[in-house]
């Protein structure tokens, strides 16, 4: 067993520490290159892990070689590694945008960026509920710093709400973890899966309460209705590369809902199986609708994109909420597409805001944008991706979700809402596009955007194109991932009863 599994956790931690300590020694230019190199190395690591788990193996890494369920445990299966790869790719382009000057806003941008990745990677890899909490706190603490990076009244106000809400969420998480430990005596997720399935009837109440508390916490992170109100303000107020990186933050909540919902309260969990099923799909449908109304009502482009994140989380959780193999597979494919597309949109909104001078990103006719053809072209492609129109990967993701929904009894609701909200999104973005690009008049107010600013956007869009070109293998991988997630027996087996071959580090 290799040490490859822990590398995506250790590398950003060490790099973050190094960047923090070397602030006075190394110049900003050197630290930028260092940071970029480390993020690129994480892409490579994630790709290597992807090859390792692509065969369907579940790799475990026991720190200190304590036998499960006692020690600290990292688990890499298809789902975790898929998330790692998306995170690393997203971070790569967000950082590429940030090194053009956004990182001057505060002294510790680069260390916090790495620590954010440390928390994200850890949260995806951990096999232990309490460590999930710890990694949540790490990624949140780094995100608080990144969120208010650059300062300004609006940013600080939104940041304060974000921090207080998430602290309340963390408290709920601890209450849930404490209840589970008090009743079942373990926090290892695989062990929890076994113990939950064998819960005696008199303990069902507390375990169910703890499970639903966890649902609330993850729903808060994922911005599921009615806990979504923090998101638009926070994402619209923060700086563009941070918002682009935060495109993965809501997906952490979705990941946890999927992981806990299928592993601990999954199909093999006896009486408590399917604990989240009653809640996830209806709430996701309402989220989709409310998010779309927000997209229509937004008067600033950045806020509009922030609502598009709510819309995408709605569709993603609809796919997960279907609970079928096809649904979860479609959701995982859509997750990659929507993360890249919304991140590109945040960067593009910032480019547009800068090119419009004093008007910023307010959606009203203003001065024209320099090299409007190129920027407008990018806007058009990104809008197609986000709304999910053919021929791009956004359409494919949405189509897969809809096809999976046909097998569900609630299919009229899903189809109706997804199609109507798609139309709403299309109307809203067409209006924004025409206001920003077609009805512009007067002289240029700011310099046209530089090519360097457009490269990260182009890169993210190219990733979406790659999702389309290699759609066959990727959809196959997503389906295999969904299959693995829906059969947690193998996960439990790999963690609790490792064979000699799959075993010790």
């Amino acid at each position, binding site marked *: 067993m290799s040490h490859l599994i822990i590398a995506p956790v250790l590398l950003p931690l060490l790099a973050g520490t190094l960047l923090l300590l070397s602030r006075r020694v190394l110049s900003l230019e050197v630290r930028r290159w260092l940071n970029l190199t480390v993020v690129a190395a994480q892409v490579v690591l994630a790709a290597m892990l992807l090859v390792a788990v692509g065969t369907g193996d579940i790799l475990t890494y026991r720190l200190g070689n304590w036998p499960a369920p006692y020690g600290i445990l990292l688990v890499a299966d298809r789902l975790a590694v898929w998330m790692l790869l998306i995170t690393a790719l997203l971070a790569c382009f967000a950082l590429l945008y940030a090194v053009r000057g956004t990182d001057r806003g505060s002294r510790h941008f680069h260390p916090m960026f790495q620590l954010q990745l440390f928390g994200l990677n850890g949260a995806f890899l951990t096999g232990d509920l*309490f460590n999930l909490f*710890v990694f949540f*706190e790490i990624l949140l*603490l780094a995100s*608080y710093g990144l969120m*208010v990076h650059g*300062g*300004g*009244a609006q940013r*600080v*106000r939104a*940041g*304060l*709400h974000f*921090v*207080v809400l998430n*602290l*309340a969420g*963390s*408290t709920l998480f*601890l*209450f849930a*973890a*404490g*209840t589970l*430990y*008090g009743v079942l005596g373990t926090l290892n997720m695989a062990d929890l899966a076994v113990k939950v399935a064998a819960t005696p009837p008199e303990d069902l109440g507390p375990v169910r309460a703890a499970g639903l508390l966890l649902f609330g916490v993850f729903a808060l992170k994922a911005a599921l209705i009615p806990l979504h109100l923090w998101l638009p303000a926070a994402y619209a107020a923060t700086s563009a590369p941070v918002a682009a990186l935060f495109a993965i933050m809501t997906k952490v909540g979705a990941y946890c809902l999927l992981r806990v919902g299928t592993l601990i309260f999954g199909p093999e969990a006896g009486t408590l199986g399917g604990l989240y099923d009653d809640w996830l799909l209806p709430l996701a449908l309402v989220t989709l609708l409310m998010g779309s109304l927000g997209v229509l009502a937004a008067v600033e482009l950045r806020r509009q994109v922030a609502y598009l994140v709510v819309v995408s989380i709605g569709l993603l959780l609809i796919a997960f909420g279907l609970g079928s193999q096809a649904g979860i597979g479609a959701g995982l494919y859509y997750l990659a597409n929507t993360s890249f597309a919304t991140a590109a949109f945040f960067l593009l909104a910032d480019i547009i805001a800068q090119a419009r001078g004093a008007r910023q990103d307010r959606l009203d006719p203003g001065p024209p944008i320099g090299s409007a053809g190129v920027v407008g072209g990018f806007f058009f492609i990104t809008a197609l991706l986000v709304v999910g129109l053919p021929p791009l990967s956004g359409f494919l993701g949405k189509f897969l979700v809809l096809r999976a929904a046909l097998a569900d009894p609630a299919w009229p609701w899903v189809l109706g809402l997804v199609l109507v909200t798609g139309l709403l999104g299309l109307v809203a973005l067409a209006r924004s596009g025409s206001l920003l690009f077609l009805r512009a008049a007067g002289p240029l107010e700011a310099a046209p955007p530089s090519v360097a600013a457009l490269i990260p956007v182009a890169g993210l869009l190219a990733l979406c194109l790659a999702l389309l070109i290699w759609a066959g293998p990727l959809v196959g991988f997503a389906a295999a991932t969904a299959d693995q997630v829906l059969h947690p027996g193998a996960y439990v087996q790999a963690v609790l009863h490792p064979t000699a071959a799959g075993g010790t580090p």
Partner: protein
Amino acid sequence: MEALMSAIVGVLTACGVYLMLRGRTFPVVLGLTLLTYAVNLFLFSSGRLAIGVPPIIQEQASGYADPLPQALVLTAIVISFAMTAFVIMLSLKARAELGNDQVDGRSEGGEVS
């Protein structure tokens, strides 16, 4: 002892929630602190309450205290301490940037500053 412990956790949580719903940053921070105290006590008691029993193996011990919740509480205390420090600094910054200490940045009259 169980009744006393649950009463303390309950009262702390109730006070914490009440304070968190206030409009100014200072009570909100105080409320968050009380909530973390409550959750720390709760976590501590999740390993069952026992007096005078050792957490590690001892020849003549009649029973053992569960050491894991103690480790969890220690972690939770450290994290909540850091979070409290951060949220205090952020509140001070918000006070400086927004010109008042309302959580949503509005003064009493309701204007956005």
